[in-house]
């Protein structure tokens, strides 16, 4: 008790106690993160561009099947998994790891430990993934959703991942701030959950495949948990850090965040088998997943209320902070996609939407609307601090935001609706199947347009980053200035 009150006093503005003098300064921590974090982030963004290109090809093929049809390696059934795996394991995971590394250092109050270890991990991750994506395109896809990367590359990814986990545990052990913030719980959980998931799925599906539909159970336990126990915790950790940090106000209720964390940990990992509603599985497996999906109302509403109450009265700051814009949109999408997901898991709703494009829209609302947007926001905060350079173009930031925001809305809303109509038509046996297909075409074309907007946003973002990096490595040596952190901090930075 006495120890905690002592640390608390160190947290009060202006107070410099023994404890705080041992903790590294923010600028020192940020600078130490530069190489490994940038390595993960830049590779992640390059995979994002590749993934966007593959997505556009796949999207166009779905309404114009003759497009690029003569090349076997670009057939829809290969481009689609190649897209999924580049954005999941290339963009989302690597950017997520980059953000995780930085958040861990900042919250543990230690300069980056063993940057070499993390950089080696990033190099192997990219080698493994490149081999795997080429493998999918030349026909070695496993056709197991979310686990398409062929067997010969997944051990490389696992090894590289293990290095990241080792790094995180070392950092955690060496932390100079003994108390844990809610973001750290989520990060630590993600880091420990993922290897378990990935190892189970690799062993039971790729290395020594189980027989029959047990594969489907393992597959969806894994696939849904990659979302729920890997991306979601990293995304929520970022939201819990950046909203308070940007607006300068602590999270509304710390108790609610505890409830949110533990209810997510309890329920999310049981959700996966709702992907098999109506399928050839014993009913109890599916029912238990539906129950757990509905229980997700607890963490979702808890987190939504907590974030909203924190933002209350500070919405004006959205105008000024790119980080806040992206992160708040991401937080709203988290609520929306979770509620949509709960609805999708109900038998009566699933009967209509299960096999339709509705599911695709839902997945993008979650992975893009929530996770990618939160990552973009985080990067807008992190990169200037670790490189000590401002964003060169504020216009490109706005372009990035609005292109992604509009693209996202045009992607998710119409395709969700189109999916419902598709499902209703499909469940009416008097409608010929080709009529059902015809009915989806307008939505699919709109989706391609939305994808182009998202692509434009990505190019704007990467362009801005390249420009910024040119200033880091080029002759331009203007250091970070007042505008970066708000004018009132100029004195602190300039000391």
């Amino acid at each position, binding site marked *: *008790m006495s120890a*905690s009150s002592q640390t*608390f006093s*160190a*947290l*009060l*503005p*202006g*107070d*410099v106690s023994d404890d*705080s003098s041992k*903790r590294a*300064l*923010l600028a020192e921590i940020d600078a130490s993160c530069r190489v490994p974090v940038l390595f993960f982030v830049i590779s992640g963004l390059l995979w994002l561009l590749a993934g966007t290109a593959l997505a556009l090809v796949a999207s166009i093929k779905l309404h114009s099947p003759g497009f690029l049809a003569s090349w076997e390696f670009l057939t829809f059934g290969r481009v689609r998994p190649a897209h999924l795996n580049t954005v999941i394991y290339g963009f989302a995971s690597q950017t997520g790891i980059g953000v995780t590394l930085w958040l861990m250092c900042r*919250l543990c109050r230690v300069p980056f430990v063993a940057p070499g270890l993390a950089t080696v991990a990033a190099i192997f991750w990219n080698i493994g993934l490149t081999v795997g994506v080429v493998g999918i395109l030349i026909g070695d896809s496993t056709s197991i959703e979310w686990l398409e990367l062929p067997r010969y590359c997944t051990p490389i990814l696992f090894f590289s991942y293990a290095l990241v986990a080792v790094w995180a545990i070392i950092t955690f052990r060496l932390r100079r*701030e003994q*108390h*844990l*913030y*809610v*973001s750290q719980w989520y990060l630590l959980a993600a880091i420990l959950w993922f290897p378990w998931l990935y190892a189970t799925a690799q062993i039971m599906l790729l290395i020594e495949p189980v027989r029959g539909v047990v594969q489907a159970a393992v597959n969806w336990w894994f696939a849904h948990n990659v979302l729920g126990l890997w991306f979601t915790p990293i995304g929520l950790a970022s939201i819990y*850090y950046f909203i*308070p*940090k*940007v*607006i*300068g*106000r*602590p*999270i509304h*209720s*710390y*108790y609610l*965040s*505890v409830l949110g964390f533990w209810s997510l940990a309890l329920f999310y990992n049981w959700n996966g088998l709702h992907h098999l509603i109506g399928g050839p599985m014993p009913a109890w497996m599916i029912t238990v997943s539906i129950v757990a999906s509905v229980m997700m109302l607890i963490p979702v509403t808890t987190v939504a209320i907590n974030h909203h109450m924190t933002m209350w009265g500070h919405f004006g*700051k959205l*105008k*000024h*902070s*790119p*980080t*806040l814009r992206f992160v708040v949109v991401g937080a709203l999408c988290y609520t929306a996609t979770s509620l949509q997901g709960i609805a999708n898991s109900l038998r009566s709703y699933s009967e209509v939407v299960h096999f339709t494009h509705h599911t695709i829209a839902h997945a993008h609302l979650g992975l893009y609307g929530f996770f990618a947007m939160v990552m973009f926001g985080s990067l*807008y*905060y992190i990169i200037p601090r670790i490189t000590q350079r*401002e*964003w060169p173009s*504020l216009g490109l*930031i*706005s372009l990035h935001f609005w292109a992604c925001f509009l693209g996202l809305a045009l992607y998710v809303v119409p395709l969700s609706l189109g999916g419902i109509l598709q499902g209703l038509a499909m469940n009416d046996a008097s409608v010929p199947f080709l009529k059902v297909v015809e009915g989806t075409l307008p939505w699919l074309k709109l989706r391609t347009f939305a994808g182009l907007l998202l692509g434009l946003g990505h190019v704007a973002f990467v362009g801005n980053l390249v420009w910024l990096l040119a200033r880091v490595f080029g002759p331009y040596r*203007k250091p970070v*200035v*007042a*505008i*970066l*952190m*708000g*004018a*009132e*901090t100029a004195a*602190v930075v300039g000391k």
Partner: protein
Amino acid sequence: MNVLAILMIGGVLAVPGVALVALRWASHRGELNLPERAALLPFDEEEPVGRATDQILNRQSAES
């Protein structure tokens, strides 16, 4: 009854059991007394509560 079944039944009994022991231990050590002030952890003397950061867009008086 094969090994897997025994493992599962053992697991079903062991998991909540260990969880209860852990909770009891933690509550004795006072680890469950979560103070609201843990919410202050992202802030420090460098960037205290009340100071907004990242306010870079749409600023009229932006100067370097």
